[in-house]
């Protein structure tokens, strides 16, 4: 027993290592489960890299604990067993540091979007790298000075600054979280941040406790073994709890996760609980709609809009109408509810405006940059320019052919009570493509390309 306390490989050690392995597997399963189980929308790598960073950090942290605290018996001079790789690099920059930085990046993004009401000016990957620099610097400094002994322990004067840097990052996270605590988030963002704070404080406390015990009672072997075991097990559990799915998913994906039971995908409007427009009540009781009105007036009628949307989807020009509808929904959110407005505005930007977005609309560079660089996400006129351009597109491209399309005939049949004068001038086959049987809706991409090149053109 005394032997294995020093060289490792006690039975409790093996149990602890098994538990940590189990927790890592659970972590990976938890991360990948939504992607495998349901046919969720395609998520690009750029959307989930924060999650991947978390997984890497968790694995790295656990491994650093296992390798540096004598759990397994490995030969002393084995290059794998270098203390500096595990106790310094894997624990610091790539372990605890990475995990904390991911959380800080997330908090910073939330602060920027909800408190300052603009899109974050720095890309999250750049920000993460910047935040990690102190850790990397510290690790390099330690590596050069080599204060660790052969059991990967260091003297007290080295431990204090290390505890300080851990505590400093925790304090930074608490600070940023405090700035957003008054926002009423709708998707558990604040709970995630609190969870992160609690978990990291517990972890630091444990680590300090274990260190103190180990140093003070170096000769009592059962304390060593016990503290080792407890440290690894609690670290594994904490890593599992610390992991948060919501850090980097696009918001629509989160909504679909919540509604996993129902098969239909929730719209953002439903997820936010925005009431439907009052106009609908009016138009269903009105007998006929005046088809001589300009298109922008006609589109305010929900049934007309949906009929038009189906037609536009069939010609692969549907994103304009979807965009118009979501901006219309945004305008239904009262101005004194900035949080919901911000969610909706961000959703619209992610889905329709950002370059390479899944349903990117056809607007000019200037309009796009104005929206992306806006100083106020809650501004009621944020999307006005874009809507004007899109309306022009719809009028010149789609309106004329809509009148002679199947969808319009169906609409008129449903609206058949008192038709206003317009008879379609003999409906012939619309010039718009009716042969292409696929919608522009990425959620329904069942259309298989036999010889597609695989990658979308993304210049």
């Amino acid at each position: 027993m005394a032997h294995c306390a020093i060289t490792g490989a006690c039975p409790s050690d093996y149990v602890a290592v098994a538990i940590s392995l189990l927790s890592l597997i659970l972590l990976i399963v938890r991360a990948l489960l939504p992607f495998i189980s349901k046919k969720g929308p395609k998520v690009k790598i750029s959307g989930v890299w924060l999650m991947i960073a978390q997984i890497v950090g968790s694995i790295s942290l656990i491994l650093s604990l296992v390798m540096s605290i004598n759990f397994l018996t490995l030969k002393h001079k084995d290059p794998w067993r270098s203390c500096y790789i595990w106790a310094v690099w894997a624990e610091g920059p790539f372990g605890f540091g990475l995990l904390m930085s991911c959380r800080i990046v997330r908090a910073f993004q939330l602060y920027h979007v909800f408190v300052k009401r603009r899109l974050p000016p720095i890309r999250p990957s750049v920000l993460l790298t910047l935040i990690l620099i102190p850790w990397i610097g510290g690790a390099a400094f330690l590596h050069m000075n080599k204060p660790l002994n052969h059991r990967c322990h260091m003297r007290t004067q080295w431990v204090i600054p290390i505890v300080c840097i851990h505590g400093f990052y925790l304090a930074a996270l608490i600070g940023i979280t405090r700035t957003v605590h008054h926002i009423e988030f709708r998707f558990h963002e604040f709970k995630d941040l609190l969870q992160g704070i609690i978990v990291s404080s517990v972890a630091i406390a444990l680590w300090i406790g274990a260190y103190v015990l180990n140093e003070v009672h170096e000769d009592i072997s059962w304390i060593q073994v016990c503290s080792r075991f407890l440290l690894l097990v609690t670290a594994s559990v904490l890593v599992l709890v610390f992991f948060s799915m919501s850090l980097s998913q696009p918001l629509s994906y989160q909504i679909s996760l919540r509604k996993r039971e129902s098969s239909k995908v929730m719209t953002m409007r439903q997820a936010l609980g925005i009431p439907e427009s009052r106009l609908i009540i009016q138009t269903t009781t009105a007998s006929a709609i005046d088809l001589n009105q300009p298109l922008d007036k006609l589109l305010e009628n929900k049934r007309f809009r949906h009929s038009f949307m189906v037609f536009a989807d069939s010609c692969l020009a549907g994103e304009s109408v979807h965009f118009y509808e979501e901006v219309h929904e945004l305008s239904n959110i009262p101005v004194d509810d900035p949080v919901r407005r911000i969610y909706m505005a961000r959703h619209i930007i992610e889905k329709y405006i950002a370059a390479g977005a899944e349903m990117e609309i056809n607007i000019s560079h200037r309009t796009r940059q104005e929206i992306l660089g806006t100083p106020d996400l809650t501004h009621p006129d944020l999307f006005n320019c874009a809507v004007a351009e899109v309306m022009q597109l719809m009028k010149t491209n789609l309106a004329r052919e809509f009148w002679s399309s199947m969808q319009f005939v169906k609409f008129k049949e449903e609206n058949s009570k008192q038709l206003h004068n317009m008879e379609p001038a003999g409906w012939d086959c619309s010039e718009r493509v009716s042969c292409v049987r696929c919608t522009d809706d990425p959620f329904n991409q069942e259309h298989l390309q036999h010889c597609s090149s695989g990658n979308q053109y993304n210049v």
Partner: protein
Amino acid sequence: MMSILAVLLENMGCSCSRPHSFNEADTEENVQAAEIERRIAQETKAEQHIHKLLLLGAGESGKSTIFKQIKLLFQNGFDAAELRSYTSVIHANVYQTIKILYDGAKELAQSESNSSILYDEAKELPQSESNSSKYEISPENKEIGEKLSEIGSRLDYPLLTKELANEIKILWEDAAIQETYSHGNILQVPDCAQYFMENLERLSEVDYVPTKDDVLNARVRTTGVVEIQFSPVGENRKSGEVYRLYDVGGQRNERRKWIHLFEGVTAVIFCAAISEYDQMAFEDEKKNRMMDTKELFEWVLNQACFEKTSFMLFLNKFDIFEKKVQKVPLSVCEWFKDYQPMASGKQEVEHAYEFVKKKFEELYFQSSKPDRVDRVFKIYRTTALDQKLVKKTFKLVDETLRRRNLIEAGLL
């Protein structure tokens, strides 16, 4: 054979094509099978004659103009109702153009005065009172400019009255606006600007009906996909050659929709506007249009579906290219940076054109894998606004495709 059949059957889901009905209630199995076979063969033969043509290219490269020309040449052209429907589009073009020019002139004047202030400060010179930039609009026209700029930003444009047309003309003739127009490559000025501005009186008539040329010049940004089916009437009317032509949008967001059209294409007509070597893309003002076209062409050439597809490259907007190449050197575009001007005048234009053509040829052979060398590749110099030229060009395209069709069928 069965794979061709499967592909054709898939493409036949269109409500525009003939319905596809089998009579499966026959008694004898053999007779039934033979009957079905015969029908399939008939339909296949008929469908095989429908050639799918795609018009691809970057934004504003002339695809929709070619599309309109084909409609004019081989279908019934534009009837009165359709011509009248273009009135609002043309008026919209006028308002948008003058707004772009006015806002552009203001910005250029502002940035010039900013840089001259900085320059004066750096050199510690006393700031001159009248920083009269050449983009500074004369004071009496500023009010008109503001009014027209406001009109141009509305959702619904007003009808173009004589009064408004006069004001636009006054503003257009302002020296600052003309200066802005001549340096318009950094703004998004449509190519039809000059044409419409010169015809303002006619456009603002009360009973104005657009002419064919007006319609061809009108700028409409295409979104989604449009198709027509036509038969180029040749000497032999029974040839049965039918073409189905697809027009698409060229901006970056529209390109993700192209993939739905890539199967079973006989020929791709790729439009490249060679006059745009000094302009920036509409959807990304940091991207040079010629470089964008180059990358797009490469991407299209490397598509797996286009192994056997013929490529017709239309080097379009030659009329604008002619005038521009004498003022702006080709080397401003990165792709053409090794261009050396030789002569001047007409010879220079020809020399420049041959250079550009060679660049595209090199690009084609670089991008095509060795197993695709036997696909047809032809380059045509076009000006999409010129009906005679487009007709001639399309005749050549038609001949090429027919010859290739016969080669494929093993008859040549």
